[in-house]
């Protein structure tokens, strides 16, 4: 189990590093998907098989595909890649690297010195059944709220996704309308 965890973890780290440094958006997306698959392996190694499935199906499968659609709509080309490269000047990296280093130092310090650091993971499998029992047991209210969350996201996406030509198509559908438009100054 440890071996699987480390191997997949290293893959995840390497691919993620490529995501943030890669110039080509499509390549980056593929690296991201790989990183997620590697994480799914990690989940499995930790005994969370259900979460691993979700990671593959929902995250790598659905969300990343959404990204891919958008990349296709944006009609990216070689020019984009060249511009992307020109944006990644080394001096841009200093500030974030210092901040990341500091934060990393703090986190490692916390992980090493804190008393829970001695905890061990055995990797007992957690069945989907148990997760479902919890989800629809004590967490049922949160599930209901998540439904409203998705509903709201749907409404937002539908509204933001509207095109200017949709307006013309709908015409005078609306109930109330102001006729005179005050100009600025």
């Amino acid at each position: 189990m440890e071996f699987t965890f480390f191997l997949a973890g290293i893959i995840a780290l390497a691919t993620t590093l490529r995501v943030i440094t890669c110039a080509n958006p499509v390549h980056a997306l593929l690296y991201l998907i790989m990183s997620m698959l590697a994480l799914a392996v990690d989940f499995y190694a930790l005994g969370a098989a259900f979460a691993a499935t979700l990671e593959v199906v929902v995250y790598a499968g659905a969300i990343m595909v959404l990204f891919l659609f958008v990349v296709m709509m944006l009609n990216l080309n070689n020019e984009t890649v060249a511009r992307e490269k020109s944006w990644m000047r080394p001096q841009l990296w200093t500030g974030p690297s210092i901040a990341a280093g500091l934060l990393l130092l703090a986190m490692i310090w916390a992980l090493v010195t804190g008393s829970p650091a001695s905890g061990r993971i055995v990797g007992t499998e957690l069945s989907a059944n148990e997760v479902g029992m919890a989800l629809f047991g004590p967490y049922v209210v949160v599930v209901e709220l998540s439904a409203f969350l998705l509903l709201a996201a749907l409404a937002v996406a539908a509204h933001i996704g509207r095109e200017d030509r949709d307006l013309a198509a709908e015409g005078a559908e609306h109930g109330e309308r102001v006729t005179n438009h005050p100009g600025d100054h």
Partner: protein
Amino acid sequence: MNDTWNQVLGALPTIFVAITILAQFLAVTIKRDPRVTHAVTVVGLNLSLLSLIGLVAFAPIAVGPLFEVDPYALFFWAVVLIAGLAGSTFARPYLAGFEDRRDEFYILLVTSVLGAMALIASRHFAGLFIGLELLSIPLYGMIAYTFRTRAALEAAFKYLILSGAASAFLLFGMALLYAASGQLTYHSLSVAAAAGLGTSSDAWLLMGVGMMLVALMFKLSLVPFHIWTPDVYEGAPAPVGAFLATVSKTAVFAVLLRFFVVSPVTDNTWLIFLIGVIAVVSMLVGNLLALRQDNVKRILGYSSIAHIGYLMTAIVAGAPLSIEAVAIYLATYVGTSLGAFGVVALVSSPFSGKDAAHIDHFRGLYYKRPVLAVSMALMMLSLAGIPLTMGFIGKFFILSVAMASGLWWLAGAIIIGSGIALFYYLRVMAVLFMDRPASARELVADAPGLRYGQFIIWLLAALTVLIGIYPSPLIWLASAAGIVIPA
């Protein structure tokens, strides 16, 4: 069975809000008419408010392991419901000039209110997280609602990215706390900690609390996580600004205070000291940034940084009085901000591109719309904390909490901050009564629903003075708003 019904009773106000959302969707499917959607909103939120009154006798009720409907939650539920009502009423005339669908706005607003309510009552990390996201996700849509103006789009994007990063911080912090303790409810964290996982100053717990704080401080726009505030306030449609400054701030602060009161993992002198430093810096930076600002919405944004800074004093003090002080301060701040943003919204109504937010747009407002101008002047006085306005009462309570706990440096910072703030509040106030330049933006008085908005402004202005001279009812309510600490 009995217990289930009891929990349903406790959740009744949120159930009413949820039903409102469904009714809105239904109304939109049948026929799109902003009048109907708005009416559904008003009725639903009012029903929820009414059910709050009925609940007073039964509180506290625990709704599952995740939520606690105690008097504290009821108080802040009332605050966010009222703020939501006011926000939706300001949106009606504002959106009358918006060349696209207008019904979704009300749906998003009510959903956001539902999130705020969940957040306020949550006593479990899952509730906290979902509440916060349910509050934020509709807000992205509301900020970007008028997405054809570039400012709104830009504001939404800035908020989305930074807020997303903050959410990740929140989650990682929670994960650390969970990893260290195996517990997800606030009050049980320390139980586990005491049972052999080290002390409350254990590095994992401290790191977890710290990362959660980063996220909550971002939502509260405390220095150094304040930097998005003015841009989002400026770019967002004015009614959304009102909502953001009131509902979002109230709910997040309420949950922050609950976390600090209930969970002893926050019992760390060094942590509290750092929060005190952040509070002081926020008071000073917020007020200094507003000093020479010409955009009224940005002024309100910057001043909100300072106001939340004042509020953090109560968390640092942690005195028994602090819950009462926070309740009073937030209620008065919400009333005043609603009024100020409401005036901006009504002056900009109906929507036509950029909002009337430049200080010159308000020149001589007194001669055009005396009621709005006088109300705005009252709001500025209240924000500045001038006696006989409700802002004074709030500030007085915070100050007395600081002094009672011997936090002289915080009290001093509050006084210095208020001194700086006086300058820009009075500047806005003075402009209202100046002579009107010929080039002034003309106001349109015939937007549908404008008089409802004006009515709300009247009400808020009257309340500002009334509570300023007769604060006892508010103080009584606030003193009853106790947090229940589960055994």
